[in-house]
Each structure stands twice: as C-alpha cells, then as structure tokens.
C-alpha cells in the first residue's frame, strides 16, 4: 500500500478554539505543527459561541478564582474533578490576559479594563451575591477569539491542512499513537500524517440527535476515533439540552422569551407547564421544561401535522416589546419556522446543545485510561482538548461561560505539554502497516457497490432514535428499547452502501464516514445513560429522581468493544485548597 505521507512534530485535528490555541503555543515555540480541519478553520463551531469566557478578574464586582471554583463544583452537581476545576479557574486569568495580548477585542469598561457580565450560576463568596465573571467581545466572543487565534497561527507559520477529513489514528508496532490517516476532501486521496504527538480537538457531537443547536460539522469525529483506538469515553450520559429549539431545525430560542412573559401551550392551547411545575411554570429548570414538552408530545398533545412539537406563544407581548426586548427571535422564527411570533406561536422542541463528557484527559490535556483497579495511565503521545475531551471540569452540568474557558485553558495547556513531550521524544515512530491498513479500510469499504441500506436513510433514523430514546426522557423502558433499536441500526450500517463512488468532493462519502462516528458516539451516550440509575445534573431519570452519592458519585467509562461500562472515582481533592463536599444543589 503506497500512501503519501508528511511528518510533523505535532498533529492537531480540529481548528476551533482548543486546536488553534494549542497550535499557537506550539508554533510560537518553533515546534513543527500541522492542523487538520474538515472545514476552513474560521468556519469551526467556536464561531457560534456568543456568551463569553469566565475568569475571576474582579473588574466589575469583587471576585476570586476560589469562588469561581466553588460555583463550578456546585454546578457540576459534584461530579467534576476538583483538582481539574481548581486548575481551570486559576488558569482562567492568565489565559484571558494572553488572549487580550494576542488581540481579542474584549468589550471594555470606561477605565479601560475588560468588561465582565453576570451569568447564571455565578456567585461571590461561595454562594453569596451574584458575581460578574464573564468576559465578552460584544455578542460575538467566539468569532473574535477564533479569528484572532487563526491570524496569530498564520503569523507563527502553523501548517494548515484545510478541508482534510481525519479517518483514524494510527499506531506503531508497540501500540503508541503515531499520527493519523486523513482524507483530502477535494481529491478524495488519503494522506498519512505522522507525528510525535497528536491532539484531538474536534469539538462536539450534537448531530447524534435529530434536533440540535450544533452545526452540521459537529459529528463527534475525535470521540469516535478515540473509541476505535480502544480508548473509553467518559461521562457521555451528561448531555445538555435546551428546552426551546425551533422544532425540526434546532436553533436556540433564548430562555429570555419566557422570562419576558412568553409561555408554552400544547395543541389544545393549554398552558401545560402549570401541571408540571405549578409555581415556576414556564420558568422551571431546563430539564423539567424539556421533559414536560416531550411528555406532552408522547401523550398525543403535540401540535402540528405530526403532533411532534409544542408551541411557544408570545403574540400577547405585542410587536413593540418583541422587537425591543427580544431582538433576533422574531427574525429567527420567521426564517426557520416560517412563523412571525407577533401573530403566531413558535413551534419548539428540546434541542441538544453541549456534551459534558468526552475523551478522558488529565489537566495537561493528556489522554488517560484506567489500568488495574483505581489507577490510570497516560496514553503516550495522545492529547485531547475542547468539547470532545473530558478533563472533568463540567461534571454533570456545565455553567455558562465555562465552555469557551475549557477549550482555551486546556488547549493552551495541552500545547505547552506537547512542547515538552516532543523535546523528550525527538524521534518519529514508524507506523505499523497493519494499523494503517485498518484505517484505510474505513475508507475503502465505501468503494463497494451493490445493494444495502442508503447511508443517508440510516443517518436520519439513527438520529431520530437517539432523540426519542436517549434524549431528555430517560426511563429504563424507553432507553432499553432504544438501545435495541440502535444496535439494529449499527448492524445495518455494516451493509450500508453509497451510490456515488466519485472521488472529487464526494460529500456523500464524507457524510457516510461521519455517520460511522455518529453511531459510535451515539451508542456511548445511550449505553452510559441506560446504566446510570440516578438523576444528576443534565442526566435526569423519572424512575430514579434523586442524586445517589453513595452509589453513583463516580465517572462512567464506555468502551466500544461489547458496549462495556467501567467506572472510576471522582477526584474530590483539589490541588491546594479544601474539598467542597457534596451538598444539595439549590439556587
């Protein structure tokens, strides 16, 4: 097998905030770094992050990293690792200053300091008054960060492979990761990129669900590559859903709509939230509202031709209030739902938003796997950062402003650690031909012709099944039935075929490769959720409604082989301060 190859010190797969921040550390230290991205880098999903980055700068209100740490541990429903959380909250401050110096145009106070806004879940003095911790560049923080990092990488001469799709990791004869096999989308030709260290920074996996706020590119590619390399995924059952996405499309309709007086009704016009949450009604917590919507649909009270959504009514607020206080909502609803909320309700359904779980790493971005009982070891040369990784800073639930922080801190630290790693490991390992052949088979299987289920049909069915059986409504019965069906679809995938066998820009083939990733990652969510018999953070089970710290204060580890589950303890000991013991999470 003759496949062209390129050699680098470090290979980064993914060009969002985590990948680009790591690449910048490396290129600035004269390490030869390649970044592979399936789309042009500034089209990565980081661009969609509007909110901001948390850091205890204390520019607006008193603050310190220890309070930030408390809020994050509490927000995680005590499933986050406290050493990693302490580390992230401390590192947040230099990370933001470094971005400021790199040119990110943060919004400013009159005194010239970075402006900070208040977000939910932020407190002063360990649960006291509201804090103001989120640094933002107007309402386009992700865009500003992504563009700054990209331009700095161009200046530092990072080598970009734009529109290359990563197929799989490759190993040497000892099993050590030695780079990845990638596919040039334009030509359809494979390329082997050999590297001493490889960082997975491929972002989220929202596309495993039918309704998601994630862009089409978020197909869990890095997570699936890790699974196929025998690495488990951690805490995958913890997936954040937003209760009001535009039905069938997924775009977020902000909670502010309900805050301003909008309310949900079923097909009979009933304000059903009064039944599920008599006091808070439409302003109940996200998981309660999400589950109520799904229950209404399941019990036949959904609106629309197929009865598969609920209506968000705000016409009673009047055009002036809607235009003034909810800018963008009217436009979004008109364009994507064909409904002008001044006259008619918006069709909504819970939308999959953010994965707390991912590839398990330590606080330096190094991928870690368990060995024996209780201990774990670093996978030499393999790193992960960003939404595809799980350094365990979000635990069971992520706070607003902590996702951009996560990708930036751990991208930066992974970059710094890789610098040391490549200095200590100066020689390139030889790729095992068997490993390369296995990676190639993932591509060549799509050259087979003949019958079989069309890949695009399987994709739609799989995503719908994930939504119905591993989404917000998680009872034993619903999930067990779903698992059976997902397994059937996984079996059918083995016989899936393409009708288009061309090479140049064969997007059907890329989507088929992505489908394999969606199936692998989707199963990790479904199986992890089925096994966790408690409710914690974003994982909410009506049949096990309480948090169970005695049996379940532990991390899930899902292995692809035989859908096996394992568990490891939560790291409750911080680096330098006292632990925060688990308490009931009340706001």
């Amino acid at each position, binding site marked *: 097998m003759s496949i062209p190859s390129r050699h680098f010190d470090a290979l980064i797969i993914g060009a969002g905030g985590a990948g680009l921040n790591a690449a910048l550390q490396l290129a600035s230290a004269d390490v030869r770094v390649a970044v592979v991205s*399936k*789309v042009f880098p*500034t*089209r*990565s*999903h*980081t*661009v*969609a992050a509007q909110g901001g980055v948390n850091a205890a700068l204390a520019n607006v209100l008193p603050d310190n990293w220890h309070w930030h740490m408390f809020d994050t541990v509490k927000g995680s429903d005590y499933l986050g690792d406290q050493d990693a959380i302490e580390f992230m909250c401390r590192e947040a401050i230099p990370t933001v200053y470094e971005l400021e110096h790199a040119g990110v145009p943060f919004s400013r106070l009159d005194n010239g300091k970075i402006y900070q806004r208040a977000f939910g879940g932020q407190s002063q003095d360990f649960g006291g008054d509201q804090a103001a911790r989120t640094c933002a560049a107007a309402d*386009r923080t992700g*865009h500003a960060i*992504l*563009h700054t990092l990209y331009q700095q990488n161009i200046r530092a001469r990072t080598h970009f492979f734009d*529109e290359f799709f990563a197929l799989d990791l490759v190993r040497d004869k000892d099993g050590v990761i030695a780079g990845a096999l990638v596919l040039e*989308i334009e030509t359809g030709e494979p390329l082997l990129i050999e590297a001493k260290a490889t960082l997975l920074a491929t972002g989220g996996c929202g596309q495993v669900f039918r309704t*998601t*706020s*994630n*862009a*089409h*590119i978020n197909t869990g590619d890095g997570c699936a590559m890790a699974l196929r390399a025998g690495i488990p995924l951690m805490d995958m059952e913890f997936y954040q859903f937003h209760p009001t996405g535009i039905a069938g*499309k*997924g*775009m977020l309709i902000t909670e502010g709509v309900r805050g301003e007086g909008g309310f949900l009704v079923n097909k009979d016009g009933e304000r059903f939230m009064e039944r599920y949450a008599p006091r808070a009604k439409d302003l109940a917590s996200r998981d309660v509202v999400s589950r109520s919507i799904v229950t209404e649909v399941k019990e036949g009270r959904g609106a629309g031709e197929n009865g598969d959504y609920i209506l968000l009514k705000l016409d009673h607020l009047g055009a002036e209030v809607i235009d003034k206080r909810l*800018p*963008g909502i009217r*436009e*979004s609803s*008109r*364009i*994507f*739902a*064909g*409904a002008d909320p001044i006259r*008619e309700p918006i069709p909504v359904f819970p939308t999959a938003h953010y994965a707390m779980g991912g590839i398990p790493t330590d606080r330096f971005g190094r991928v870690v796997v368990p060995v024996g009982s209780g201990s774990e070891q670093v996978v030499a040369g393999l790193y992960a950062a960003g939404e595809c990784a799980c350094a365990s800073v979000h635990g069971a639930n992520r706070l607003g402003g902590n996702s951009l922080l996560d990708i930036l801190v751990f991208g930066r630290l992974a970059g710094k650690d890789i610098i040391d790693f490549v200095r200590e490991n100066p020689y390139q390992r030889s790729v095992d031909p068997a490993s390369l052949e296995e990676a190639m088979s993932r591509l060549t299987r799509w050259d087979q012709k003949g019958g079989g289920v069309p890949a695009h049909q399987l994709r739609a069915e799989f995503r719908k099944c994930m939504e119905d059986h591993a989404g917000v409504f998680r009872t034993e019965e619903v999930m067990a039935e779903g698992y059976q069906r997902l397994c059937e679809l996984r079996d059918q995938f083995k016989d899936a075929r393409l009708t*288009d066998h*061309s090479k*140049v*820009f*064969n*997007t059907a083939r*890329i989507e088929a490769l992505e489908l394999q990733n969606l199936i692998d990652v989707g199963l990790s969510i479904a199986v992890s959720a089925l096994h966790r018999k408690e409710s914690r953070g974003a994982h909410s089970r009506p049949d096990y409604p309480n948090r169970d710290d005695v049996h379940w204060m532990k991390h899930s580890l899902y292995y692809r082989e035989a859908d096996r589950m394992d568990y490891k303890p939560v790291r409750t000991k911080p680096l330098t301060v006292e632990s925060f013991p688990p308490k009931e999470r009340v706001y």
Partner: protein
Amino acid sequence: MSGPIRQPDPVTDEELRRLRWQCRRGMLELDHLLSGFLDRGYRDLDARGRTEFLALLDNQDQELSDWFMSRSIPEDPVVRDLVRHIVAVVTPRRT
C-alpha cells in the same frame, strides 16, 4: 419586459458537491440557509447569480449571520438582493 426566456445552464454534480462543502459552516443557521438554498434555489440562478453565490460563500460566518438575521445590511446592493433572495427561498411557507 419581453424577450427570450433564458434557461439557466445545467449544474454539474461536481459543482454541486464542491458548493455543498462550502455551505458547511460554523453556525447551524448558516448550514440551513446555505444548504437549503443550494437544494432549492441555486439551479434557478443564471451564470452571474451563481458567481455571486460563490462569492457570498467567501464571507465570514459572523458577517453572513448578521446579514441573514437583519442585524446589518450588506453595502453592496447585489449582495443585499442575493441575501434577501436566499431567505425568501429557504423560509418555510406555512398553511
């Protein structure tokens, strides 16, 4: 206005595949608008319109999002018209 009705040139599969990947963006809203237009409106464009669509795809995601969501208006009237046309084609019609 009278005159011969000009049929749009046929679109090649390769052209569509290339464009489909350029319609993959960092924001779900743009994925829907641009891919939706590629499926439902692109074939009806004449040669100049197709060139304009290709040029539109070169803009940054944030800028495209601002234009589509009416947060700002493109200075170039050609781009302005194209943005309006894409929204009109993609917006679902409810009965």
